[in-house]
């Protein structure tokens, strides 16, 4: 009882409205429509479903991986409206109307995206668990440099960021590789970047 009373106290200020312990036990359903890899998808989901779980468990696109489920590893990286995000830290219902591109949408084994090809050529993986996230992130990183978005290592904020490896390395820091395939990952991205710069 005492703990419950204190608990409501916690929420009094950190919540946007006064509250007690969440007593709700029944899941709440909500509808959401998204476009995934160009295909319209209408789903009715438990509001708790993350975009990652919607992709993997409901749309059976299992290329995107769940590493940490906390925004720390990047294995779940997908593109939403052209930007890379961690799909584990957004709810599917928050993505109403969004266009999502996953690794499956970037290319297929028969018709690979240049970044996928480069990862294969450079052996940019070992177990492959982080790879989908690495590739989605890498494609986005090159876009971000092109757009002129600064990074922590950009020397002059008023000049376009460079395409060198320190920029790529810094921008890829949200994608961890448990196997430590980093040098080959860097090699793959640098090859694609070199082709573009």
């Amino acid at each position, binding site marked *: 009882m005492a*703990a419950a009373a*204190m*608990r409501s*106290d*916690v929420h*009094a*200020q*950190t*919540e*946007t*409205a*006064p*509250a*007690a*312990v*969440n*007593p*709700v*036990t*029944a*899941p*709440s359903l*909500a509808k959401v429509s998204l476009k995934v890899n160009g295909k319209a998808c209408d789903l009715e989901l438990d*509001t*708790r479903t*993350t975009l990652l779980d919607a992709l993997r468990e409901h749309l059976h696109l299992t290329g995107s991986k769940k590493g940490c*489920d*906390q*925004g720390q590893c*990047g294995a779940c*990286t997908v593109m939403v409206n052209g*930007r*890379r*995000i*961690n799909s584990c*830290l*957004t*709810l599917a*219902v*928050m993505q*109403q109307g969004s266009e999502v591109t996953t690794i499956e949408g970037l290319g297929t084994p028969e018709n690979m995206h240049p970044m996928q090809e480069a990862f294969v050529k450079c052996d940019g993986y070992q177990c492959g668990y982080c790879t989908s996230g690495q590739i989605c*992130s890498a494609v*986005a*990183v090159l876009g*971000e440099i092109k*757009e*002129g*978005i*600064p*990074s*922590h290592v*950009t020397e002059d*904020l*008023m000049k376009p960021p460079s395409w060198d490896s320190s920029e790529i*390395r*810094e*921008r890829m*820091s*949200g*994608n961890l590789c448990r196997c430590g395939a980093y040098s080959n990952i860097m090699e793959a991205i640098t090859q694609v970047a070199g082709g573009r710069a």
Partner: protein
Amino acid sequence: MKPFTYERAESPAAAAGAAMRHPGAKFVAGGTNLLDLMKLEIEEPMHLIDVNGLQLDKIEPTPEGGLRIGALVRNTDLAADERVRRDYGVLSRALVAGASGQLRNMATTAGNLLQRTRCPYFYDTNQPCNKRLPGSGCSAVDGASRQLAIIGVSEACIATHPSDMAVALRVLDASVETILPDGTTRTIPIADFHRLPGDTPHLETVLQPGELITAVTLPKPLGGTHIYHKVRDRASYAFALVSIAAVIQRDGSGRVAVGGVAHKPWRVEAAEAELPRGAKAVTERLLADAKPTKDNAFKVKLVERVLGAVLAEAKGA
């Protein structure tokens, strides 16, 4: 995660109103902090109000010559805005020193200000923590406190505010614009926005229940050299041990705010008068009342050294 109902708010006033109507409601913006905490059931809202559709995602000039940053502007877009890069470089620098590219694409201006501490015991639901469960005690005072605060601390809590962006906003003297559930609006100076822990560490800001942040405004540009220097355990993608946001003028005067040392960005205006006398003099004044633990006493020296580096860089610029 506990179940919750969900709605998309149509206007700022409607969002604030909905928060009052629904017990246990919370706003969700980028979701990068809130969802993480909901998975751990540290946050357990009964109702989520999605504020992403409120069109608060613009950066506009103010009549006073400053900038008004919508609450929903993503950290990436704020850092990349040409006016911010040119006139408020310390803010761009602080933003890109935080989190990862993916997270900055989701994280919003308001959400960043309201992100909760990274104290390990706040996250560990098996341990006492006054911030998570008032009255349960603080595991950090006698625990692993290397990352935690050295100043403005209380017996109840020694947590830090983890935001990099907030440190830059403090040095720039930004203000936070809000709307309350009754439809009134107010402007809160950033200096008054975050609270010190005192004996109520669960109260982190002066926001009222249901109060929605609509924008953050920056006063007109200060000129000078803008520097954000962050020291952390990894070169990238780690929270600050100590960080310094500084705007230093040609004549050596300027402003300094420190991150990673307190429950809010730490700035003591009186200490800035010491700037011409160097880092040691400023730090002595800035951290005069520091009460570090055994584990984090190194931060006092670290602040002085980082400030030394910042002042040297400003001189060379």
